[in-house]
């Protein structure tokens, strides 16, 4: 029977059916469920790597060692893994390797919306683009065959809407691919200049062979309809086109690098008007234009965000979409916010009150940038907070470092914060770094990492000791505080900021969502004592709300987990424990 699967689960299934035995990843929306699903299969090895570069390097080793290997990451993760990726494209594989790039058009949960098909062109990798979960499974499985047949890593590029949509999948049997023989082959795998020059020749030969394949494969197919309009499309955009305009002619591309030139020329010659429908960058369109074919694309479609069936209707058919009820004009936005009981709230409340300059990082705590906490000055990429605080100190001097901090999560610190910290020590910075240690990778749905002491399958393992690590790189002043004890946190910050030496404060308290025990006590606001100053509302907690008429703060007992923060901020001692 067919089963509903999100795209990510289907990719894991495809890798399993292809006989993959190794999978690696660093969690990142929208890619996370790929390797966590794969880990549930029997007889396979899966890991959360410390970052995407390590994930790919372990994957490369597994491939050279002869195993079919799956490596998964979000689009920006490929930036981290780009260094090994470009050169691995030269060496090629032993066991097949499929790299999943999960892009995020519309930035549902990302800091940019880069189009990683650009990477594939740059690194000269073949690219598969599935359009639903069935294809995600089938293409992944096929990806391993292509990887071995053409001796190349293969990129399977998906987007959020594919990764997180459930569609029906017919599963197949696992092929026991086994582990291929390993023979030392230094000319292929040791990329000295002399060897690499030889490999580059192979890469260019391979691209020509892949171009032939692109023209022959059934992954690229024409669905003939009305020939007055022909659309070239791939991925989930294909579904939007089919939904909006089922009667036109469509060239559906499942294999998009290199492009099938003969097929595209033939299609272009048989339709009156040719349009490329692709989210984000004009990757297909520009190549088609370079061949001298008249085609439309980004002149009618946007470079920004996700597409939709109604957008296709508007731009291609000129149909007006629903006018609507007009209620939306009075609807306030609902940005995401820190959960009730979140330990980060204590940190950002304090940083805001102390008026510090805060270089931030990637994680739930990036939400500390939003009002009312308003506690962040910059956030660029994984691990950037520490280098950024150091750079600000070097630009503005040591006195500026007395009122600035870097804030980084435990998983992010392990991912790529450690080298920044070494730089502060080595180049005599004096900044203070806050590691927000909530014992998990929270934003992506609570994955383990080296400092939790648990593996992807929840096995106990060696636990990275963050205090010892910071001391080992040369930080003399390392202290651990509870971020929901505001006095303790403030005192630690005051003391460490004063010091003209680098220091680390580890704010240690588990994520409120992984604490299983229900709260022992309940709070209420004593209406007699509440003066309506709203300071408790300014911690931005949904465990609390404001009654405008009564000028009174009220606890929402369904949301409050009695974390103890609001009684500490209340000047009038109005938050009380419910007796009995």
């Amino acid at each position, binding site marked *: 029977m067919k089963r509903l699967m999100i795209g990510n689960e289907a990719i894991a299934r495809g890798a399993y059916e292809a006989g993959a035995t190794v999978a690696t990843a660093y969690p990142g929306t929208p890619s996370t469920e790929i390797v966590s699903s794969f880990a549930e299969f029997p007889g396979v090895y899966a890991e959360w790597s410390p970052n995407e570069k390590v994930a790919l390097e372990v994957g490369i080793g597994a491939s050279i060692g002869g195993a079919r290997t799956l490596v998964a990451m979000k689009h920006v993760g490929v930036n981290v893994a780009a260094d090994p990726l470009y050169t691995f494209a030269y060496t090629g594989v032993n066991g097949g390797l499929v790299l999943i790039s999960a892009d995020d058009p519309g930035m549902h949960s990302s800091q940019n919306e880069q189009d990683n098909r650009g990477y594939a062109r740059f690194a000269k990798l073949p690219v598969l683009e599935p359009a639903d979960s069935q294809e995600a499974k089938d293409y992944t499985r096929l990806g391993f065959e292509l990887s071995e047949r053409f001796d190349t890593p293969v990129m399977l590029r998906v987007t959020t809407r594919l990764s997180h949509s459930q569609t029906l999948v017919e599963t197949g049997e696992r092929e026991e691919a086994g582990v291929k023989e390993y023979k030392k082959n230094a000319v292929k795998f040791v990329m000295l200049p002399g060897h690499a020059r030889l490999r580059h020749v192979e890469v260019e030969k391979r691209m020509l062979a892949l171009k032939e394949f692109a023209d022959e494969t059934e992954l690229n197919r024409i669905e003939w309809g009305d020939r007055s309009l022909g659309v070239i499309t791939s991925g989930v955009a294909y579904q939007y086109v089919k939904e909006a305009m089922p009667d036109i002619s469509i060239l559906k591309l499942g294999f998009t690098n290199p492009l099938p030139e003969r097929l595209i020329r033939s299609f272009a010659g048989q339709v009156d008007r040719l349009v490329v429908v692709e989210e984000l960058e004009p990757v297909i369109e520009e190549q088609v234009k370079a061949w001298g074919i008249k085609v439309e694309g980004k002149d009618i479609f946007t470079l920004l965000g996700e597409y939709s069936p109604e957008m296709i209707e508007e731009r291609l058919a000129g149909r007006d979409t629903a006018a609507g009820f007009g209620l939306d004009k009075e609807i306030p936005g609902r940005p995401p916010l820190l959960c009730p009981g979140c330990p980060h709230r204590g940190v950002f409340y304090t940083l805001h009150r102390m008026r510090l300059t805060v270089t931030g990082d990637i994680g739930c705590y990036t939400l500390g940038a939003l009002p009312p906490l308003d506690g962040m000055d910059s956030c660029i990429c994984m691990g950037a907070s520490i280098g950024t605080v150091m750079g600000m100190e070097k630009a503005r001097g040591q006195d500026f470092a007395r009122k600035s901090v870097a804030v980084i999560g435990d998983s992010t610190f392990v991912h790529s914060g450690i080298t920044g910290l070494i730089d502060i020590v080595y180049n005599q910075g004096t900044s203070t770094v806050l590691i927000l240690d909530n014992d998990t990778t929270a934003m992506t749905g609570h994955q383990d990492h080296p400092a939790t002491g648990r593996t992807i399958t929840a096995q106990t393992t060696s636990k990275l000791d963050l205090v010892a690590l910071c001391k080992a790189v040369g930080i003399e002043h390392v202290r651990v505080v509870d971020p929901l004890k505001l006095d303790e946190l403030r005192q630690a910050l005051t003391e460490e900021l004063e010091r003209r030496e680098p220091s680390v404060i580890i704010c240690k308290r588990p994520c409120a969502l992984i604490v299983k025990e229900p709260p022992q006590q309940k709070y209420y606001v004593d209406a007699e004592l509440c003066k309506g100053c709203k300071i408790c509302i300014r911690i931005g907690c949904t465990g609390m*709300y404001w009654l405008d008429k009564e000028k009174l703060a009220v606890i929402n007992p369904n949301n409050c987990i009695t974390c103890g923060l609001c009684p500490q901020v209340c000047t009038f001692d109005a938050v009380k424990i419910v007796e009995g």
Partner: protein
Amino acid sequence: MPNQTRNILIVGVGGQGTLLTSRIIAQVVVQMGYDVKVSEIHGMAQRGGSVVSQVRYGEKIYSPIIKKGDADVLLAFEKLEAARWLDYLKPGGKVIINNDRVDPLPVMTGKAKYPQDIDQKIAALVPDTTIVDATAIAIECGNVKAANVVLVGMLSGAMGIPAEEVEKAIATMVPAKALEVNLKAFREGEKLFAAMVG
């Protein structure tokens, strides 16, 4: 089996359980032999942001997302979210609103006002609007967390989906110790829908 595609938009606030509701409904229509696509939101928006799940079923489904003005039913776990997504409803469509208010950040901080009587405004625009206190019913059933399953009952009533199919799906999807409460919550939701439609 109806030939035409049916579209259900389930909206709410991250953490309210919209994902489980959409997954139960999707499982039910798979059991019934339809082609199905479900679009979900994971990641940052789940932290108290505006979230939406989309369930589409019929003979053959292409897009996993629903076009504006094309939803047969808008099921809202929270009043403001019902208003936010109302334009996705098709003419003659049905709105089910859980009578819950969760203030978004701009309201909490005084930058914006929570619109007054927003559910009544929706009811005035859409004749087929049902407002229900699923949270209270769930508490009566024994667990406040079962509010989303009360809404499953309302929804399956609205879509004309047989109860035994839903009960079968719930049994495969919720932990054994929570099954009784969830089945009770589902039946209460269904009963309530029947009573409201009269």
